[in-house]
């Protein structure tokens, strides 16, 4: 079945089973591979993308429920919050294996877009859905705070 999908600002037709999780459309059809598969049941957050600016677990989102929305993947997160987050991530050497980090960056960017100066509690709440098996959480917290600080200036 052909569906119209707007990903990273471009609208494309994809011919897929409408129940296909958005994750597999993004990866298998659109070949945007920054978004990862970790669990398939919305427990780990490796598949996080933005749907109309909201962090969304693409592995449990049927593709036909997001037609007509704006979907943003790690490949196209942009704006001052995304730049600040990614700069802090690199400067603080956050990633280890790196597999979860696309999802972490998307969630952190969405957090700062909504709350430019989050409290520690708000950081923990916003990032609670993103598992890092390497447990880089201490640096994720630091990087979000640093990104928030640079945004203020």
């Amino acid at each position, binding site marked *: 079945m052909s569906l119209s999908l707007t990903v990273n600002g471009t609208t494309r037709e994809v011919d897929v089973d409408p129940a*296909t999780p958005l994750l597999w459309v993004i990866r298998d059809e659109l070949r945007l591979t920054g978004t990862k598969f970790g669990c398939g049941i919305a427990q780990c957050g490796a598949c996080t993308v933005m749907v109309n600016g909201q962090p969304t677990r693409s592995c449990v989102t049927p593709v036909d429920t997001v037609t007509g929305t704006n979907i943003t993947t790690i490949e196209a997160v942009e704006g001052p919050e995304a730049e600040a987050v990614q700069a802090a991530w690199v400067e603080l050497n956050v990633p280890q294996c790196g597999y979860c*980090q696309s999802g972490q960056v998307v969630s952190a960017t969405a957090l700062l877009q909504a709350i430019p100066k989050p409290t520690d509690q708000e950081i923990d709440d916003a990032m609670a859905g993103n598992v890092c098996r390497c447990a880089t*959480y201490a640096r994720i917290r630091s990087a979000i705070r640093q990104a928030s600080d640079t945004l203020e200036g």
Partner: protein
Amino acid sequence: MTLIKPTRRAFLASTAGLVIAVALPQARRAAAQAQGEQNFAPDAFIRIAPDNTVTVLIKHLEMGQGANTGLASVVAEELDADWAQMRAESAPANTALYTNFAFGIQGVGGSTGMANSYMQMRKAGAAARAMLVEAAARDWGVDASAITVEAGTLTGPDGQTGTFGDFAEAALDSEVPADPALKDPSEFKLIGQKLTRLDSPGKTDGTSEFTIDIYLDGMETVAVLHPPKFGATVASVNDAAALEVPGVTRVAQIPTGVAVYGTNTYAAFQGRDALEVEWDESGAETRSSAEMAQVWAEAARGEAREVEASGDIKAAFADAATTHEAEFVFPFLAHAPLEPLDGVIQLGDGEAEVWMGSQLQTVDHGTLAGVLQIDQANVALNTMYAGGSFGRRATPASHFAAELANVASAAGPGAYKLLWTRENDIRGGYYRPLTVHHLRGALDADGKITGWQNTIANQSIIAGSPFEQMMQDGLDPTSYEGSTNMPYDWPAHRVSWARMESGVPVLWWRAVGHTHTAYSTETFLDELLEMGGQDQVQGRLDLISAEAGRDRAVLERVADMAGWSGPGTGDRRMGVALHESFGSYVAMIAEVEDRDGHPFTTKVWCAVDCGFAVNPDVVISQMEGGIGFGLGTTLYNEITIEQGGRVRQSNFDQYRMIRIYDMPQIEVAIVNSQNDPSGVGEPGVPPIAPAMANAWRSLTGATPRRLPLQDAGV
């Protein structure tokens, strides 16, 4: 040292620039392999291109522990390169060139990545530098000794300057130095400094390529259904419904189960779910893990096989004023790397190319060739970034490579991506072994420890594997490492091991035996010290032998960092633990509070001596990660095998991961003992669980004897 200079101009023309390979005399059984024809192989460690980039081929899997950055930084140091011009690339599978000197095969584990590469990479960098200098000397007509190199720039006596790229081609004609001079560590500019990890940018913007990210023309994605019990096999398959799923192209029975091929991932997963399979469970392991734990505990209470002893242990207990006894049960654990096991294969006629996060390339390469029945020379194995491993991708049984090859063989020439689901992973076995420890301690009338006895029961990881030759007279040190060679001087002690058997495949799991031995020994010792009226830090210091200066130093340092004056009396208590593993010494103090009946660790102080810290920020990050990894496991993780043999847990909803809100504040200090670099990937894991448990005992009066804590009713 033998320097290998490629002689095939054709290869050089294709890559352009200086290529250097260095093979060191092999200390161990790889000696024979290191000599001979591979001297003419084009593979190398360093490639300097005319565009002035320096690419270091990394012989070890980058699975998050910083291998790319670490090895490249060592080369850059001796080369006097600018960090910005450095690149890293995974080396291809080639045992002769890329062997790990600790094992004699290509592969990494046991936190050996830096330790076995440090001098090799230094010499490679120094040799390349000398060859570039010689090329510049020829070009400028000056003496090589008059040329200086700094941050990637060569400077001549008359103000001539050039980049590495400028001389990359000409350096091919330079003499290969037999024994290039190495820097004095006091001259280091990059080693010992914080550097931006080479893999950070790509892992932050989503461009880093993992195995799962490979898409080949016409590639099919393959999902597998494994037996529900270990040792069960396929009896019959009804694939009618699976084949009706749109996009499913075929179903094949393979030795490990049933494979479903699809034009996309969703089709393959849907097809797998639609399979109807009858299993032959006649050879399956049907005992529950609880049943096994009882058998193991029985063995741990018995005599078992002595592996280390001193003094007169019988007299120590016979003469004791007080004795103490405890039994600990440690569950099976899954590694659960966030990237599920996956591999891609392009199978041709008599040749194949494979991409996977291979941690033991030599073993996987041989397995692929063997299963495919293709000459190994015609099988190329490319090592990809791995989305975590924690030991999971270092399987002596090479079962994943074999399954990948079987998937391809069953379907014939073509391109295939085998992708495990999380359920395949959690239920797939190769667990940290279920383990029971039985400890006894003897105290004299003054409260001094006079006897220490520890008996450990678990399966052997290496028996029956290609690593069986590591066994010592029938003993598998990975089963009890950390319970032996303790830093403490006991008047009498005895450590024993009982080898258990089950149908559940087991594997090394980040820090291997130390994952359980650190917990039992450091919590039990803490209890004995308390019984003897001693402070937990000073009591340990009093016990540490004269030879164990590195243990003493990290313990003193961490006590100082935390301002230790005992566990405390308030809502937050401190617990301490000390444990050496893989040549690195780590002491931790955890501060813990009771939140609704559960331990919450608010802060961890960590002192580590890993010898000379090549990349201090990587060392710190590995301690932080090790603490989080160990903490989450201790709180939440176990694999439960139900009566009948099925695994209860299947995904992260039941096999709970540590999350950001569980993470303590962490302060790490590197104690530089000036010893040779040792590993950091694993040593941060063992001490956190006993440190936390000791603090928890201060709060509650009891050490959890069964992990995880949530299973112990905590």
